[in-house]
């Protein structure tokens, strides 16, 4: 034991690992190492230290060296050549392929974006066209409404609000020439759900109401100008609120407006 300790402390094992002992000395240390496990262990530790040291001190060593040396050793010895682990040309090839892929991918995305834009623009165009058409229709409606109202042959009857709804008002445009009757209901509140306004032509003596129509689809009619049936001889017009579908006789408690011709 003592022998091994002294041997270790002498510093000869370091020189053994460094490889600077002569052959005789080297064989002697090898023999000692085989005999004493602690000497063997010490040798391994010294070796680890200098392997770390020389590894850390190594300048950059490019991967090309691996290929170069490998080719030299293995081709010479007739070992079947395998693909090099790394290779500049191969790397450039792959890099180019990757760049190309990215480029193609980018172009594809661009194309896709452009296509989407075309679709969007196309759909916007259609929307604008629809809007334009609907404005055209509105314009025509407005023009026809104006034409109805402005007709010189009209008898205009103003209907005033009644007890149930004093604020209500309406106008009846009665064209005696064409026998068409229009009701301007802009002054009436929207009818509650399930109810409808019904227009009556009245004879006063005796009081005889005749239904000339319902103001259907009240909300949808922006101009609130409704055509109703013509009437032979009316002395007054009244509008009542009735259950949907209308009533055979007016519910006088629900008389909104009334006006004499």
């Amino acid at each position, binding site marked *: 034991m003592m022998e091994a300790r002294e041997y270790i*402390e*002498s*510093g*000869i094992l*370091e*020189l*053994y*690992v*460094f*490889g*600077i002992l002569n052959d005789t000395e*080297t*064989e002697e*240390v*090898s023999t000692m190492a085989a005999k004493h496990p602690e000497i063997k262990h010490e*040798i391994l*530790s*010294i*070796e*680890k*230290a*200098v*392997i*770390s*040291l*020389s*590894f*850390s*001190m*190594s*300048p*950059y*060593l490019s991967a090309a*060296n*691996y290929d*170069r*040396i*490998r080719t*030299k*050793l*293995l081709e010479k*010895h007739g*070992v079947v050549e*395998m693909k090099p*682990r790394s290779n500049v040309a191969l790397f450039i090839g792959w890099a180019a392929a990757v760049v190309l892929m990215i480029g193609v991918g980018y172009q594809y995305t661009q194309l896709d974006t452009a296509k989407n834009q075309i679709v969007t623009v196309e759909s916007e165009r259609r929307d604008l066209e629809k809007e334009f058409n609907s404005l055209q229709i509105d314009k025509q409606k407005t023009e026809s409404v104006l034409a109805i109202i402005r007709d010189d042959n009209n008898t205009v009857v103003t209907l005033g609000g009644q007890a149930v709804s004093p604020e209500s008002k309406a106008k009846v445009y009665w064209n005696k020439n064409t026998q068409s009757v229009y009701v301007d209901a802009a002054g009436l509140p929207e009818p509650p759900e399930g109810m409808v306004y019904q227009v009556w032509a009245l004879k006063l003596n005796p009081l005889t109401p005749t239904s000339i129509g319902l103001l259907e689809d009240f909300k949808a009619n922006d101009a609130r100008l409704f055509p109703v049936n013509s009437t032979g001889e009316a002395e007054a017009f009244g509008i009542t609120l009735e259950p949907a579908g209308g009533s055979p006789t007016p519910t006088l408690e629900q008389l909104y407006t009334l006006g004499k011709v």
Partner: protein
Amino acid sequence: MTQEELLPLILKKDDKAFTTLYDMYSKNLYGIIYNLIRDHEESEDVLQEVFVKIWKNIESYNESKGRFFTWILNIARNTAIDKLRSKGFNNNQKNLSADNFVHLLDDSNKLSNLIDTIGIQEFVKKLKPKCIKIINLLFFKGYTQQEASDELEIPLGTVKTQNRNCINDLRNFLQV
């Protein structure tokens, strides 16, 4: 992989054998070679030559000749020194005091940036100057005790023990 496991593998001299050998030792050998040659291109040529020699002579290696690492270390140093002589490099370069392995750190060399090597690189900078000198001569340059004793002007008997103390500092740092 230990050296004992490596040997039978290398003796097969196949692709895997070479890759394993290269991965385990190429950087160590290159560090030794470059410290002597100080030229990247020449050092790479020497490294190739060293691998060729290992490959060719592997059958002649046995453990009585020392550790496998020691065996390839000697091949690397001897091949590099032969190269220096054949190229007519000035041998006096050996005597320049600034010419030691620590200066590999100051060179424009791209040293390995691996985390586990940065620590030891920093440690090496702080080594005692006499340790740098003695490790440089004995380990990196393969000087004999006598040559180192002459070069450093210290008694022959002191070379071994001083070197051991220096290697012990390194081992304490590395915890090996």
